[in-house]
């Protein structure tokens, strides 16, 4: 017997202040110093640093698949993706000049020992003597909220409630106009519209999607979602 999973407060009904407090709390990360201390206490490689640690997490299969944009069923297992968000935020907090390097490094970090990355972190860690720090809340919190909102929409869609899925996706678009998962949101909207019989709207949205993202791995999915032109 399945008990229905409750909605997250942050998805439905949270006030702005509640959202802000929960997002900030969820974005807090241990300082590099504390992370190294924990790792050393476990006999793990002394070079395990915060960014290295979390970005290695990014290389778990779920996240790699998620990054392809095709792994919607895996997003609910989006813990790994959230860890990536934390890594990016924690890392960019100390390496603002090169934030894009973290995701790029992640796959290599899985294959190789973390040592090449860790030494670069040492001076930054030394420059941040606080015992812990709060990473800038918005990016990680936003990503977390983005994933949660899309998860809710996907759950609604797979439960047959396409109208609700559509409402959640529109809320996603309105809340995150530059959201990381805008393409996925659009693809899901095309599917929901098609299921609701709003074929013209689905087709128009699909066309604009393909025009805007011709190389997206979601193109095939979007095209399959709409009824063929008569």
């Amino acid at each position, binding site marked *: 017997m399945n*008990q229905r999973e409750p909605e997250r407060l942050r998805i439905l009904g949270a006030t702005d202040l509640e959202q802000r407090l929960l997002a900030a*709390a969820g974005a807090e990360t241990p300082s590099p110093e504390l992370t190294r201390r924990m790792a050393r206490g476990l006999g793990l490689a002394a070079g*395990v640093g915060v960014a290295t640690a979390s970005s290695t997490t990014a290389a778990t299969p779920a996240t790699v698949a998620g990054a392809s944009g095709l792994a919607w069923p895996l997003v609910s297992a989006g813990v790994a993706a959230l*860890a990536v968000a934390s890594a990016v935020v924690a890392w960019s907090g100390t390496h603002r000049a090169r934030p894009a390097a973290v995701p790029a490094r992640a796959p290599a970090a899985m294959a190789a020992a973390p040592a090449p990355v860790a030494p670069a972190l040492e001076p930054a860690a030394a420059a941040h003597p606080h015992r812990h720090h709060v990473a800038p809340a918005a990016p990680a919190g936003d990503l977390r909220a983005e994933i949660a909102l899309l998860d809710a929409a996907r759950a609604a869609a797979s439960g047959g409630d396409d109208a609700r899925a559509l409402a959640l996706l529109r809320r996603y678009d309105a809340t995150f106009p530059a959201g990381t998962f805008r393409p996925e949101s659009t693809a899901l909207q095309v599917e929901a519209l098609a299921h609701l019989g709003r074929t013209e709207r689905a087709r128009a949205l699909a066309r604009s999607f393909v025009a805007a993202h011709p190389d997206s791995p979601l193109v095939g999915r979007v095209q399959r979602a709409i009824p063929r032109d008569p």
Partner: protein
Amino acid sequence: MFGRSRQARQTEGRRGAPPPAPVPGGRLERMFLAHHGMVWRTLRRRGLTADAAADAAQQAFLIAAERLEDIQADSERAFLVGTALRVARTMGRKTMRWQLEEDMDRRVLEAGDHGDARAAVELCDLALSKVDADVAEVFVLFEIEGLSSPEIAASLEIPLGTVASRLRRAREQFRRVVARIETTIQREGTS
């Protein structure tokens, strides 16, 4: 489900001992990389200082290291966070940093400065400190860390129905406190 008290006591008893040898196969390292932030954060939300949270998290991973063969791959996170919360309870109130009621106004003012993430975190913790401890754990795991109800049930070794009822109670309490905080912010903003 994760009966571990004997091992826990053994592990806790050797705090300060030399670190254990690296675990063959790297599973512990993988678990650490994947979950240490979440475990640490959950302990912070339960009122531990950053240092105390790191100590308790480390203890949880040490316990996990001893029980790796008992921990299923899909329950690593639940095991770790559940164990960490139990370790935290054994650490006693000296690690707690619940804020006094009179701190609220000051923290509200600080949090009112937009972008002050530190103050927002402290305000969240302040609100959580007003929520009953047993229900707050469920709230933190579900609303902040994004665990599923079954995962929380396994982690805290409570029935699924209890997760749901604790979540409801926690939400009511948390939202009531945050509403008070909001009122304070508005009052400060208009005075």
